[in-house]
């Protein structure tokens, strides 16, 4: 899923500084699962914003709403009757949310309340980690299900570099060297020959090409 972190409060307050009434809209998708932009987080942020502004002596009216998904026009449409009743709309969805909202309602202003970070999962309660870089051409079968593009600090296709020590990356001892894991697994399972292959330079066109990448499923297109 998509993992995000909430922006610092000061940054959010700065965005809505000139507003008197805003809509804070969460999303029941990924950001709910990673505890950053679901119902609970919408309620908490709304309260904090209200209290802070009340202290300043210029109260902020904050209405709360949570959409099923902000990346789906069908649900985005649910704001049609109310979106223009606010000075701005603050979205707690990933970076897709405020963009879909502003495409649907061009005359309103939409601000992001979270920083969208990566595609990953929970490695323990409260800690999420990146697993996929969305390069568009999956190659993890070459590396026993471990992606060096997303997980090696240098995205090396032939690692590990000379900075690998004790299973950790040269960048930080908090980062595991994914190449250490790949190599150890291959060697333990007697499949070293997999690593004696020279891989061709990656075709990055599927990762980053002209304009936003698209996925078209002909059978679904009306």
């Amino acid at each position, binding site marked *: 899923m998509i993992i995000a972190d909430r922006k610092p409060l000061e940054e959010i307050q700065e965005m809505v500084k000139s507003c008197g009434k805003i809509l804070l809209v969460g999303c029941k998708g990924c950001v709910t699962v990673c505890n950053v932009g679901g119902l609970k987080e919408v309620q908490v942020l709304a309260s904090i914003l209200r209290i802070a502004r009340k202290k300043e002596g210029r109260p902020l009216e904050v209405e709360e709403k949570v959409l099923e998904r902000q990346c789906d026009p069908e649900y985005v449409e649910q704001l049609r009757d109310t979106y223009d009743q606010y000075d701005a709309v603050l979205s707690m969805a990933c970076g897709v949310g405020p963009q879909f909202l502003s495409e649907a309602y061009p005359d309103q202003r939409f601000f992001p309340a979270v920083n969208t970070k990566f595609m990953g999962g929970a490695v323990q309660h409260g800690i999420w980690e990146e697993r996929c870089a969305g390069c568009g051409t999956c190659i993890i079968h070459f590396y026993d299900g471990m992606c060096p593009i997303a997980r090696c600090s240098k995205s090396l296709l*032939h690692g*590990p570099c000379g900075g690998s020590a004790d299973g950790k990356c040269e960048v930080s001892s908090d980062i595991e060297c994914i190449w250490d894991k790949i190599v150890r697994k291959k060697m333990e399972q007697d499949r070293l020959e997999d*690593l004696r292959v020279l891989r061709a330079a990656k075709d990055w066109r599927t990762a980053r090409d002209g304009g936003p990448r698209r996925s078209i499923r002909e059978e679904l297109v009306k």
Partner: protein
Amino acid sequence: MSENGYKSGSNLEKVLKAGHFAFTGECGPPKGANVDHLKEKFEHLRGKVDAVNVTDNQTAVVRMSSKAASALMVQAGLEPNFQMVCRDRNRLAMMADVLGAYALGIRNMLCLSGDHQHFGNHPQSKNVYDIDSMQLIAMVKKMRDEGKFLNDEPIDVPPKIFIGAACNPFADPVDYRIYRLANKIDAGADFIQTQCIYNMKRFRQFMKRAVDMGLAERASILAGVTPMKSARMAKYMAKNVPGMDVPEELIKRLEGAGKGKMAEEGIKFAIEQIQEFKEMEGVAGVHLMAIEWEHKVPEIAERAGVLPRPQVD
């Protein structure tokens, strides 16, 4: 291969092919466009080494470009070993620089992944890593031997470059390092310069495997030497440089030398190493990385008995 039987005709290649024990040095370009400073550094190496590695934004700190500094060296009549890292350039820039380097008279190149930008003075930068060091080696070989760009289009005058690669025998996972070296040689490395060696016992074991696997015959392996200036430097490297093996006994030896005498003890150890490398099976030379100590290179070379450097025509 060109008509004279050399891949590049660089001095380093000639020295190695003639069977001499090679001796290379290193020079980091200045943090600025100070040509006088650069010349002052590399002049210490004139006549003392077969080629001078010119680092490429080493430790991710911005400096004069390795290509420009290498070209200045060529103009001054020294032979550079142009280093290129994968961190700062995509494949277009890399191929362009290989061609440009060759056009400027550069004949040796060292292909590296590069230190992560996190270590440097612009940690905010975006790294490239379009290709990695293994693919860079293969790309330069293709340009040289097939006369083709990565996309198979023909090159009008291919760059005849002597291709180098790095090897750290002490990084983890240790058992895999010899295979990574083999991969680099398979990809096209003509010569290898290792990371600085301090643990001689482990390096002997590594070289034995390299010889047994036939790697030392297929590429010239130059052992990396960096003289320690002090016990503090040794401790720092042991603790803070990932993939560096500095034995406790070396630290003790430096400490034992006492204040004011540690640098000399570090040089003594380096000289002992060079002498052992000269006799070690499979070692084709030494790469001396006297970091910010270029002026010490003549003395070390003299005392290690590697002077005068051979002249091969």
